[in-house]
């Protein structure tokens, strides 16, 4: 053993390592001087690494919003443990410290050195000193240095050591069993962070796949399968070892995976939407870029356009010297096959050559000429969807293999020159290595600047934290009570990001990286209902200064603190949020919410009183139909139960009120006409393949249920329309077009039959809307074909057939007469289907949902009719309270009824039209500009005008004083492009102005103004009608509850004086993993969501007793940890035993 350390080569290698580590440490000090820290941009680099590590021990993270499932993240324990260790060594609590950067890059270098040292006899001694430099300093590694992507680095470290062991197994220097134990231990420490990092194993999969293919070919050629067998045993045992050692992470997540996440892997919609992401990520990964070690997605804004905001990418696009050097990389790398001297080298270099090319295929994603193959695999191999960012996920295999080729070539060149002069051999070799390394560093010169941490102009992850943030961290982490802190102002609405003027920016909040306390903000972890209803509501009430309502919402949501941050990005900054002073003014006016403490630009306000996590109730309000924010008017003081959230009868004794929201049936019929974009037909009726296409369609039609047939026929109608459009463009023989038109008539007949047989087509608004949606596009297209501009060269037969289709479409629309064909009618007439369950049922109409006159007074319906099963009665509006009118009638029959609200003609609010010309990227536009008279908040207006034929109009809303940003052209947000082809048409478009300054622009490209007439604008409104039924007061008394929170996943609950059934509420987000059990764990209770997000259990047990609430996944973590620890102990004991035995 000692002899080994006398080996001069080993001493030299150690010295080289030492020199590199000194160099790296100096470099890290340049990157991150004193007082600087890496954080933000979803790096997971906590500002309190100890606190963050502690949260990773639990399957539920109650700190985030209403709580989130943490079970997929147990695997990150090793990673955050290393973060914590590094922070201890660095002497500060931050994970993004210099020791951490040094550790990861240093370990990467060491593992590359071990890998290279193992191959020194085959690939040359100089290979050892060159290869690690290529592995550490390249664009793939440095692309993510700004977030110190430990998961990626960890996997690459593990891959290098795994391959070292694999080669040792092949050389019979180690047994497969030994090697697999070492390999399992390596993947235990460098496991990629968590299950969510599984895609990063893509590189390893490609290596293993190539390795097996290579060995299989070799085995066949040599007619000896021993090597393949040894490697297969090694791989299988490594996999088993990996499973055992990572059981603590795999087992808790298995439950979540099989109950919900597995469906995502094969969901067609998710696959389709992720396909766009694959294309986006692959946009720069062409083979020519990859050959040059480039192709980083961040470098590109489109296929060939550089991202100018990237800190160094543009240099590699523009500097001819750097471009020249980049082309040397593939020449040198693939020159390695020319330098092969023996069969060992041939085997290794051809393996790494093959690996380079195979990994290139995967890294390139959908970008390469073989992209169709990648797309096929992506769409058809179950689970492959996880590799939706191919460059990042397969890059490790590519970087490793190309580095081997490069290093071998350069090592061979150095060897060649050093052999010439035996005396000067060492000097020449040393000089050669220095030239190679310094040349590589010169080419990557931008890596040595702290600018690499900039990910966007003005935004870097290398930050100097303000002192008040650190003060807040210390203060906040000392608090022990459960109270959520509401982040004020809210996060940016579009990005849902947390950004500060001093540079922090991330989707995960700064608070998350900073504090162990619970916080609440409109983050991405919330679902639409939580974000749009609960969070928006509390922020709106805060802005309106309604202290009582803020307090009530806070009590419901468990909010006890308000953190006012005056340093967030606001005003005109990118990803800005609302101005903090708006909130500061209101908070300072509040009486019961008082300022508790001030930390520089941060102020903490506290709401008096306690907010226990566990409470009981015996009174609920049931909401039927969709829940909208205005229903909080009825539910401010009581708990809310949604009708669909529970199915059991036992809940009815608790109900104090039912609120039923009614849907306006006629409103969709007045919506804007949508033109469906037809997909281009590649196979037309004059093709032999067309029969196959029709056969496939018929087969699909046979296999669907009767209910689905209607939508299928609509789909086929659109497909044939697309066929005809393509045939007309290509001038295909009329007989084929007529054939398709006949098919359309057949489909229309089928649709007609289905609609005629439906229950009541004359009053089925939903079916009518469906027909309107699907038929609008074909109708418009065929009508256009008969216009004087297009009809000229069509045969009589073709004209007749098109006319017949239009006639049949007209007949189809007549099925729903008078629902469609009279769209304007629905602007003033609103129809609702009612169900009257009880004679005490009250119908209410929300005042603010009524349209407004120019003087901002409400426009009331001039006629209200309720059509019952037996009689039709008139109704009137009477005052109910501040926000609602009551619809009163003399007699309201039980059962189904129809409510009709008829409004007078709404006033035309369009005014002050003027002409203007504006610049845009497509050239001059001539515009007519007007505005809406008396714009009110949150209201939508419909612009309507007649347009002359042959115009393309661009209609948009914009502040005339803000047409251009400081950088020039401002993208036209919400611009609508309206095409008028052969006939004059009435066009309409809806707009939602933000302020009275917003004007409507109707523009046309060029110097000619749009030719339009009869322009008008009126409000689009949907009156909100609800039914309210009050129940007699129940006399159920909830018991007294006290509890002890053991940890974020476990509560011991004590119930006293339970005389009646009651509901136990846990103020954490609903998750089926939460379980309530009796103390002996034999009894379980009905579990359902309450208050739109929280957990509730229905309990009917009398007396005093104890209960336990547990988060199931935590138990699986304990079981998994036990298995992992036993496995770890077993492996280590085996190794120690064998070591001493030897």
């Amino acid at each position: 053993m000692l002899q080994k350390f006398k080996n001069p080569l080993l001493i030299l290698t150690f010295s080289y390592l030492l020199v590199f580590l000194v160099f790296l440490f100096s470099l890290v000090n340049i990157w991150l001087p004193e007082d600087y820290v890496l954080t933000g941009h979803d790096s997971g680099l906590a500002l309190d690494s100890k606190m963050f590590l502690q949260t990773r021990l639990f399957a539920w993270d109650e700190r985030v919003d209403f709580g989130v499932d943490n079970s997929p993240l147990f695997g990150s324990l090793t990673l955050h443990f290393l973060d914590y260790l590094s922070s201890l060594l660095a002497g500060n609590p931050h994970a993004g410290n210099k020791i951490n950067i040094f550790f990861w890059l240093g370990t990467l270098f060491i593992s590359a050195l071990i890998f290279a040292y193992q191959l020194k006899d085959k690939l040359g001694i100089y290979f050892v000193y060159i290869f690690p430099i290529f592995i550490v300093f390249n664009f793939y590694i440095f692309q993510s240095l700004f977030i110190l992507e430990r998961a990626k680095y960890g996997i690459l470290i593990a891959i290098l050591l795994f391959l070292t062991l694999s080669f040792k197994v092949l050389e019979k220097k180690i047994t497969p069993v030994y090697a697999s134990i070492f390999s399992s231990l390596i993947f235990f420490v460098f496991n990629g962070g968590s299950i969510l990092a599984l895609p990063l194993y893509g590189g390893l999969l490609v290596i293993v796949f190539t390795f097996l293919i290579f060995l299989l070919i070799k085995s066949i050629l040599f007619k000896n399968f021993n090597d393949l067998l040894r490697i297969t045993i090694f791989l299988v045992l490594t996999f088993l070892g990996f499973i055992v050692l990572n059981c603590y992470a795999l087992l808790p997540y298995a439950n979540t995976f099989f109950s919900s996440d597995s469906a995502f892997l094969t969901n067609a919609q998710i696959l389709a939407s992720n396909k766009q992401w694959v294309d986006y990520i692959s946009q720069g990964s062409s083979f020519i870029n990859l050959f040059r070690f480039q192709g980083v997605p961040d470098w590109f804004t489109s296929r060939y356009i550089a991202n100018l905001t990237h800190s160094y990418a543009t240099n590699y696009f523009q500097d001819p010297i750097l471009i020249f050097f980049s082309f040397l990389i593939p020449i040198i790398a693939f020159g390695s096959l020319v330098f092969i001297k023996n069969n060992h080298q041939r085997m290794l270099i051809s393996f790494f050559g093959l690996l380079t090319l195979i990994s290139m295929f995967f890294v390139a994603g959908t970008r390469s000429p073989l992209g169709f193959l990648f797309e096929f695999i992506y769409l058809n191999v179950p689970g492959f969807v996880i590799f939706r960012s191919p460059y990042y996920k397969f890059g490790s295999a590519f970087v490793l293999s190309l580095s081997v080729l490069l290093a071998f070539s350069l090592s061979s060149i150095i060897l060649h020159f050093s052999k010439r002069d035996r005396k000067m051999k060492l000097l020449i070799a040393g000089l050669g290595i220095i030239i190679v390394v310094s040349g590589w560093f010169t080419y990557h010169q931008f890596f040595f600047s702290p600018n690499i941490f900039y990910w966007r102009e003005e935004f870097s992850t290398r930050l100097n934290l303000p002192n008040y943030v650190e003060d807040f961290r210390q203060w906040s982490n000392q608090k022990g009570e459960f109270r959520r802190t509401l982040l004020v102002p809210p996060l940016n609405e579009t990005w849902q990001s947390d950004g500060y003027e001093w540079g922090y920016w991330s989707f995960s909040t700064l608070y998350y990286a900073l504090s162990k306390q619970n916080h609440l903000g409109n983050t991405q972890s919330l679902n639409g209902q939580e974000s749009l209803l609960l969070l928006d509501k509390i922020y709106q009430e805060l802005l309106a200064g309604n202290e009582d309502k803020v307090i009530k919402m806070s009590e419901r949501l468990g909010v006890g603190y308000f953190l006012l941050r005056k340093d967030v990005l606001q005003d005109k900054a990118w990803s800005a949020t609302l101005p903090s002073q708006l909130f500061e003014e209101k908070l300072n006016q509040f009486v019961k919410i008082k300022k508790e403490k001030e930390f520089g630009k941060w102020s903490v306000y506290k709401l008096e009183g306690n907010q226990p996590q566990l409470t009981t109730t015996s009174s609920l309000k049931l909401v039927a139909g969709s829940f909208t924010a205005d229903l909080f008017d009825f539910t401010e003081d009581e708990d809310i139960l949604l009708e669909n959230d529970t199915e059991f009868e036992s809940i009815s004794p608790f109900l104090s009120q039912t609120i039923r929201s009614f849907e306006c049936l006629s409103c969709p019929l007045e919506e804007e006409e949508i033109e469906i974009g037809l997909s281009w037909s590649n196979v037309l009726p004059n093709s032999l393949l067309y029969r196959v296409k029709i056969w496939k369609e018929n087969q699909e039609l046979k296999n669907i249920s009767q209910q689905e047939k209607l939508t299928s026929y609509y789909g086929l109608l659109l497909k044939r329309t697309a066929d005809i459009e393509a045939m007309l463009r290509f001038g295909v023989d009329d007989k084929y077009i007529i054939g398709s038109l006949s098919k359309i008539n057949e489909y229309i007949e089928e649709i007609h039959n289905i609609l005629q047989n439906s229950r009541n087509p004359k009053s089925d608004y939903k079916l009518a809307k469906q027909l309107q949606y699907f038929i609008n596009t074909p109708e418009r297209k065929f009508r256009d074909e008969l216009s004087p501009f297009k009809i000229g060269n069509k045969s009589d037969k073709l004209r007749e057939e098109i006319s017949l289709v239009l006639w049949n479409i007209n007949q189809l629309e007549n099925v729903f007469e008078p629902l469609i064909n009279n769209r304007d009618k629905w602007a003033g007439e609103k129809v609702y289907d009612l169900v009257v369950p009880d004679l005490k049922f009250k119908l209410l109409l929300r005042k603010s949902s009524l349209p407004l006159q120019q003087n901002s007074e409400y426009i009331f319906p001039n006629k209200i009719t309720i059509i019952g099963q037996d009689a039709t009665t008139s109704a009137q509006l009477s005052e109910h309270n501040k926000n609602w009118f009551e619809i009163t009638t003399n007699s309201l029959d039980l059962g189904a009824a129809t409510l009709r609200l008829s409004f007078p003609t709404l006033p035309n609010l369009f005014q002050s039209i003027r002409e203007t010309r504006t610049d845009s990227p497509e050239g001059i536009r001539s515009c007519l500009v007007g505005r809406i008279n008396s714009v009110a908040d949150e209201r939508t207006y419909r612009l309507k005008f007649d347009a002359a034929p042959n115009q393309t109009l661009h209609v948009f809303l914009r502040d005339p004083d803000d047409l251009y940003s400081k950088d020039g052209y401002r993208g036209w947000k919400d611009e609508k492009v309206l095409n008028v082809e052969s006939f004059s048409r009435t066009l309409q478009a809806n707009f939602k102005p933000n302020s009275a300054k917003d004007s409507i622009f109707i523009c046309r490209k060029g110097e000619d103004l749009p030719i339009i007439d009869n322009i008008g604008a009126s409000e689009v409104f949907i009156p909100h009608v609800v039914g309210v039924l009050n129940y007699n007061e129940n006399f159920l008394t909830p018991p007294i509850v006290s509890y002890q929170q053991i940890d974020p996943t476990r509560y011991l609950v004590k119930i006293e004086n339970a005389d009646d059934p009651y509901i136990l509420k846990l103020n954490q987000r609903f998750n089926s993993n939460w379980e309530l059990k009796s103390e002996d764990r034999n009894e379980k209770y009905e579990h359902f969501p309450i208050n739109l997000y929280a957990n509730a259990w229905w309990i009917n047990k009398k007396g005093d007793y104890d209960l336990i609430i547990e988060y199931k996944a935590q138990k699986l973590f304990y079981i998994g940890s036990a298995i992992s620890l036993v496995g770890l102990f077993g492996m280590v004991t085996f190794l120690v035993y064998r070591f001493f035995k030897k």
Partner: protein
Amino acid sequence: MSKKLLELEDKIKSWISQHRFRIYLFFILGPIILILPSVPYLNLFIEYELSIYIVFIFGLLVLDLSFRQIFILISLLLLVALFFFILDEPEDAEKLGNYIYGILLIWIVREILKIRSEK
């Protein structure tokens, strides 16, 4: 001089004789591959550029070039790609990159198969 010419002629003859089947195959299949993009239905899958690429690779296989010769060819193609890059024509450079990838793939597989011959 004439002797050298005769030797060269002999070498060429011998080369043609050794590779005659490949040459026949090339002259039969080459034109067929070139007209594939004009054949209905097949043109859905095979573009003109792809057919030229296949014939090009086929030609290289007929010539039975060593990896050293292929390496020189690849280096030249990369040099041309470099000029396209500097002239701000990345699309053309990309096409060359794709050709280089295909050539390398075939020749690396050939290298792997050579392992046996040197057993």
